[in-house]
């Protein structure tokens, strides 16, 4: 084709079109990398990432947060603890060992109690997040647990108003597309896993929830508890969205199972 390009000095001839092609390619590749994760994640009308949906971890953290080989009651796991070891204080470590030995009876989950935080996040049953601008509500299939993470710029209640909550009090704020949650005011009645890892009522958790892609969340948490651990420590799991057709939570409330045999009451009390 005849273009003005042919009239340019020799050293620039042929430079224009290939340069344009390369430049366009490079720019489009760069913008793809920037835009792909961002554009497609679901968002609320206020622009914040929307975590609504049903999620579940495939990790074996529930059977023991630290790395462990298989047991009769557990599959093996590479662990989800950063540094592999939970930094227990010496007395607390003794308690953990006792818990482990008695886990078949002492684990509150065996009694059907609320899993608490963060065990409910990596327990091998789904949970559903209902999210709006001012809060997220996490409904766990196991037990009758509903945890509210307030995202309305409010702080924890004053010390005159705090209770010893099973699921603590959670207050979240956004750092770009990451939800950062501060949770505390827990009771000491939940365990962190079935291996006897535990905490006191001084437990304080900072969580980070972030989309890796529209169907995957990376969940990270830092736990600190001056009565049990010698320093804060971190865990990390990946949550997958349930996409099976018509998937929904099914009630799993174990606490009443032992009482089912008495209902309906038999007239002759036999």
């Amino acid at each position, binding site marked *: 084709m005849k273009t003005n390009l042919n009239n340019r000095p020799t050293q620039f001839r042929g430079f224009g079109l290939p340069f344009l092609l390369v430049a366009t390619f490079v720019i489009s590749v760069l913008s793809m990398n920037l835009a792909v994760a961002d554009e497609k994640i679901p968002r609320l009308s206020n622009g914040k990432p929307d975590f609504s949906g049903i999620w579940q971890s495939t990790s074996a953290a529930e059977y023991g947060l630290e790395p462990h080989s298989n047991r009769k009651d557990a599959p093996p796991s590479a662990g989800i603890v950063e540094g592999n070891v939970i930094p227990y204080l010496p007395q607390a470590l003794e308690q953990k060992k006792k818990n482990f030995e008695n886990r078949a009876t002492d684990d509150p989950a065996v009694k059907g109690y609320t899993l608490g935080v963060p065990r409910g996040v990596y327990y091998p049953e789904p949970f559903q997040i209902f999210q709006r601008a001012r809060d997220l509500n996490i409904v766990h299939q196991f037990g009758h647990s509903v945890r509210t993470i307030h995202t309305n710029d409010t702080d924890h209640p004053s010390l005159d108003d705090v*209770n010893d909550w099973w699921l603590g009090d959670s207050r979240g704020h956004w750092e770009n597309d990451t939800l950062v949650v501060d949770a505390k005011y827990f*009771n000491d009645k939940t365990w962190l896993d079935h291996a006897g890892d535990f905490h006191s009522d001084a437990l304080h958790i900072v969580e980070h929830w972030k989309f890796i892609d529209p169907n995957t969340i990376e969940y990270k948490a830092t736990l600190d508890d001056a009565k049990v651990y010698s320093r804060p420590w971190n865990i990390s799991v990946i949550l997958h969205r349930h996409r099976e057709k018509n998937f929904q939570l099914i009630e799993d409330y174990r606490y009443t199972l032992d009482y089912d045999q008495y209902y309906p009451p038999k007239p002759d009390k036999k």
Partner: protein
Amino acid sequence: MLTTSRNKLKKPFVGLLAIAGLVVGLSPANAHHAFSAEFDAGQPIEVKGVVTKFELVNPHSWLYLDVKGPDGKVTNWGFEFGAPFNLKEKGITKQTLTAGTEVTIKGYRAKSGKDFGYAVTSTLPDGRTVQTGGAQDAPAAPNAPAAVNK
């Protein structure tokens, strides 16, 4: 269950339900909380000790305290309190009964015979006596409770 095909029955049926609801609602809510299922009105006690743990829980909070017996031996007792909101209205919060606080409790012993009880009133270090019990069908504070410390 009412369906549209049964519209004829709907109005009087709903009216009946409303009346039934009113009748049921007015009767005393004894089934809701049975003091006597767990605690013995015939075993009034008075306990003086040092708080080890105070759990604010709905519907019943629990206070645990170390009690020194006449033989000097220390046992840990647990006492049932009322709901956190009601306690706060009476001036008791998690900060009022921190570990180490001295408190005197008048109440009733658990039927199980274990070291548990229902707290009718609690006397705080500043001298205040607060009605901390939450059960509607619990008896009033005992006049001549058996003192566990003496």
